[in-house]
């Protein structure tokens, strides 16, 4: 049985939507138990309003929680019994197997980083995000590519980037049912020698690997095209790219609204396209993807969007369950060990 710990107090719509999503997920996943962490009195009032299985959802009391706009380190220091800290503790103590939070991203990452060890061979954890693309991938026909790191740390060395590639590939294989995900490094040109030193060195290392389907470097414009299934970059660049892509999407929607107001002909055009737009919205709906995984630790952590509703949380639970069932962390550790062994052999032969 997989015990999935959920920070019930984190997120814009907590606790109601978080509890509903997690509780309803138990109806479809008989092999999972949900541990809701938060104010037991509040959760005790919310939970009976939701459909769930009372033998598979339990509450673990945490008297406080970190607000979305609080500074992570300060908040965790001031509230040692905040729901995210208690939740990460439960997993660290072996009382839970995976963690989900829609709360303050910084506090969530910090809470895990302070309590969970990194996998053998992993130097840095990476936060991955999904981005809608033109192309679909894997048996599930996922219209998303995975970008990592998008902000767990700022800089990344060549070894870190190789580690991110391994972790992203393992995740895509498991969650998107993509047998051989195409992995690429984000750079300012497709040539092997382009980009900062860490990217050039990572390229040289990744070309040597047989475990990964490394397709080389890609540029920013290739991300929405879906040229790669896993896009590897440093946390600083990844975060900037992700925010820019989100900003562009929002601007396009705003422009469409402007067009809607401006001319009758444009309005009619938009009405004619409405079903296609709806279709597009449904296939690029981030809520169906559940959340962004924090990869590299001994346990899976799914960071759900702050605006997550019940459906998004339900999907995050499914992703966590799948990561546990597919032994994601062990797979990453095994690949890292294989790469490490090869590097050592090469060093010895040199």
């Amino acid at each position, binding site marked *: *049985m997989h015990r999935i710990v959920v920070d019930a107090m984190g997120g814009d719509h907590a606790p109601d939507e978080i509890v509903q999503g997690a509780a309803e997920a138990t*109806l479809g996943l008989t092999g999972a*138990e949900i541990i809701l962490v938060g104010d*037991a*009195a509040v959760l*005790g009032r919310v*939970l*009976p*309003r*939701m*459909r*769930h*299985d*009372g*033998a*598979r*959802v*339990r*509450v*673990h*009391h945490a*008297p406080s929680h970190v607000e979305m706009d609080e500074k992570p380190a300060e908040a965790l220091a001031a509230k040692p019994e905040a729901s995210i800290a208690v939740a990460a503790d439960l997993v660290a103590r072996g009382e839970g197997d995976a963690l989900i939070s829609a709360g303050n991203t910084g506090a969530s990452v910090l809470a895990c980083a302070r309590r969970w060890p990194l996998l053998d061979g992993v130097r840095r954890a990476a936060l991955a995000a999904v981005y809608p693309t033109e192309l679909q991938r894997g048996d599930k026909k996922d219209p998303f590519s995975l970008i990592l790191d998008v902000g767990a740390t700022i800089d990344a060395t060549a070894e870190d980037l190789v580690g991110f590639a391994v972790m992203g590939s393992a995740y895509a294989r498991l969650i998107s049912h993509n047998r051989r995900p195409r992995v690429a490094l984000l750079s300012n040109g497709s040539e092997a020698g382009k980009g900062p030193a860490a990217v050039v060195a990572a390229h040289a290392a990744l070309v040597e690997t047989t475990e990964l389907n490394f397709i080389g470097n890609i540029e920013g414009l290739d991300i929405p095209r879906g040229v790669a299934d896993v896009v590897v970059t440093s946390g600083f660049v990844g975060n900037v790219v992700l925010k820019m892509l989100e900003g562009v999407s929002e601007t396009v929607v705003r422009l469409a609204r402007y067009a809607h107001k401006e001319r009758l002909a444009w309005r009619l055009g938009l009405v004619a396209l409405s079903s296609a737009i709806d279709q597009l919205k449904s296939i690029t709906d981030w809520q169906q993807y559940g959340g962004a995984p924090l990869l590299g630790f001994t346990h899976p952590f799914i960071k759900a969007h702050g605006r997550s509703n019940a459906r998004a949380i339900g999907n995050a639970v499914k992703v966590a369950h799948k990561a546990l069932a597919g032994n994601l962390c062990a797979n990453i550790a095994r690949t890292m060990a294989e790469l490490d062994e090869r590097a050592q052999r090469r060093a010895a032969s040199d």
Partner: protein
Amino acid sequence: MATRSILRRVSRLPTRLGARIGLLEPEIEPLAPGARPPRHTFRWDLDKTYLRTEFDSLADLAKSAIETAADKQAFPGATALLRALRQDDHRICIVSGSPTQMRQVLAAKLALDGVEYDEFVLKNNLKNILRGRFRAVRAQVPYKLPAMLRSRIAAAAPCETLFGDDAEADAIIYCLYADLIAGRVSLADLERVLIASRAYDDDAQRCVDLARDVPKGSAVRRMFIHLDRRSPPQGFRRFGPRLVPVYNYFQTALVLYQDKVLSARQVIFVALEMLDSGQYELGHLATSVQDVIRRGRVSRDTALQLATDAHEAAKSGALSGRTDLPPFEQIAEAFRARVRELGTLPPGEAAPEEPLDYVRLVDEEHEHRRNRRKQGMA
């Protein structure tokens, strides 16, 4: 002599044939003169309460109809609970909405499970169809309520416990029955409820007559609603603290232990049957305890007392031969830890005890059923 014998046999033929095709149902036998009345009556529904039954679609209905007794599955813990409730001065009465044609297979299933009962009432839908009473085929209140009243008239007990599910109108019917025999619902109000329930006039009159004759008393101590559809338990709060929605029979056993109906040893037997089913692990049972405490249906003191009593029962052999389980102290500690996880949570807010507007409840239930049918769920 021979002619008389032949005539007698011929005269019995319609009765036998009627019973065979389910047109005639055996009457509920009153207690024999001088027989001791029961101390506690337990009334059980079958489908979705004792038996795992699917009838949300026509295919489910057809499958359920052709299943053999061996195919039918009881919910984990239900059989152990029914066996534990079977005592000398207890009476087990089964009132099910299944058609009378299912009697043979259902009786065989109960026999296979080693469940003994005193009454077994099924719904005579063939008779309803032959008489053109199509409304009665679906009706719940006009069928179940008189069946329960008739049963109480035959053998009234000072205590009653009722078991139903969240699929049909069991919560409404059980509360109505409890309030009716306690004298809290007038005959005039009953008539209004029966009209709302679309009972045929003569059926309604018969039900009112039974309600007039039924021995009165606040006998119904507890009602359990098995949340087969996983309906939110909050929806049952309006029925008051006497009605307890439960996710599984371990929770039922816990409440009955608190009510001093079951012993710790009997609770253990229910738990063991659930573990043996392979559908529950010890962790699920511990979480079930936490759930009923959180909902204020069982107190922390009761849970702690059960741990002590169960330890005694385990020492006296209740767990003998169970090498598959960890030592009892380890189990008890896991359960205690699950309760501690709640922190200093104040006891759950008790459900309000307010008079129920049954006409409105029946109307809402009809509306709910209509909506479900529209959505293709029932």
